[in-house]
């Protein structure tokens, strides 16, 4: 094992979320494909997606997209803005704060209708 610092963990998370979103994309293509077999199949599946555990997973998916997006902006800045590397630590902090500032309220609005009816 290598004991990397923040940059290494952010990179691992970026890859995990990237691959995770890609996996969801395939799933989404598969479930939309069900419409071709008739509306009943599709509706039944959407019913399944409405279950509370799926809502939580949806929130995790939103988190993955948000994290991948915010961190992706940080990585793009690093390539194109010459001063970005000098502010590495600050940019990491901004990325993490921005992520939670959006993800936590999103969780509140997404989970409230399911768990506090």
């Amino acid at each position: 094992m290598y004991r990397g610092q923040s940059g290494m963990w952010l990179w691992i998370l970026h890859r995990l979320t990237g691959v995770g979103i890609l996996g969801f994309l395939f799933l989404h293509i598969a479930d939309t494909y069900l419409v071709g077999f008739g509306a009943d199949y599709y509706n039944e599946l959407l019913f399944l997606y409405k279950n509370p555990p799926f809502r939580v997973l949806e929130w995790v998916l939103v988190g993955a997209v948000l994290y991948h997006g915010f961190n992706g902006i940080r990585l793009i800045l690093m390539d194109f803005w010459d001063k970005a590397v000098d502010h590495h630590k600050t940019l990491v902090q901004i990325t993490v704060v921005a992520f939670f500032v959006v993800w936590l309220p999103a969780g509140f609005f997404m989970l409230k209708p399911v768990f506090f009816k």
Partner: protein
Amino acid sequence: MATQVTVKILRYDPEKDKKAHFETYTVEADPLDRILDVLNSIKWYQDGSLTYRRSCAHGVCGSDAMRINGRNRLACKVLVRDVGGDAGKKIQIEPMLGFRILRDLVVDMDPFFEKYKSIKPYLINYEDAPASSERYQSAEDREIFDETTKCILCGACSGSCPPYWAGPDFVGPAAIVNAHRFIFDSRDQGAAERLSILGEGEGVFRCRTVYNCTDACPRNIPVTKAIEQIRRAMLYNR
């Protein structure tokens, strides 16, 4: 004041061992001793078979890069107290990742130096130097690549780099640092050649900006910054 320090070392003898394994030693050491002194003490007084590279013992030759408590460091530049060895913490020492282990802490640096050579780490200038003087360079032009002149080719950066572990053909941060040293040298005319080598699939675009290299470099070279400067030289001067 000397204290007892516990050291856990990853050992591997190709003639005897199928797999590397840890061995633990207790050494009397001063908080201000370096990890290299601790290794010497084990080799000289406990187990002469312990094998590692060292030469200058002062952070100049680049021989003794190894993983100390999970991070690449020069054994001669880390003190026992820096890693809490005097406060009773166990110190773990392993060879660098991304290299073949030859024996104990000694790794095969040949592929590393081949990659270093591949970026043409020497001055390329197709014109003769002025007969009466040296090639002139202003202090400002010299400053541009000052940081990357400091590399001692220890390999700590490349051995800390996930894309380097995963891709045996990736040139790695050390080779890129040394390309930077010439690409931005106003006396050099080989920038285009080096940029085309580093623009290939196994060049600078393999970097995932993980920053382990910048943290590992014992010469405090801003390695990631050098890599990004080369990327921008490619992106903006096409």
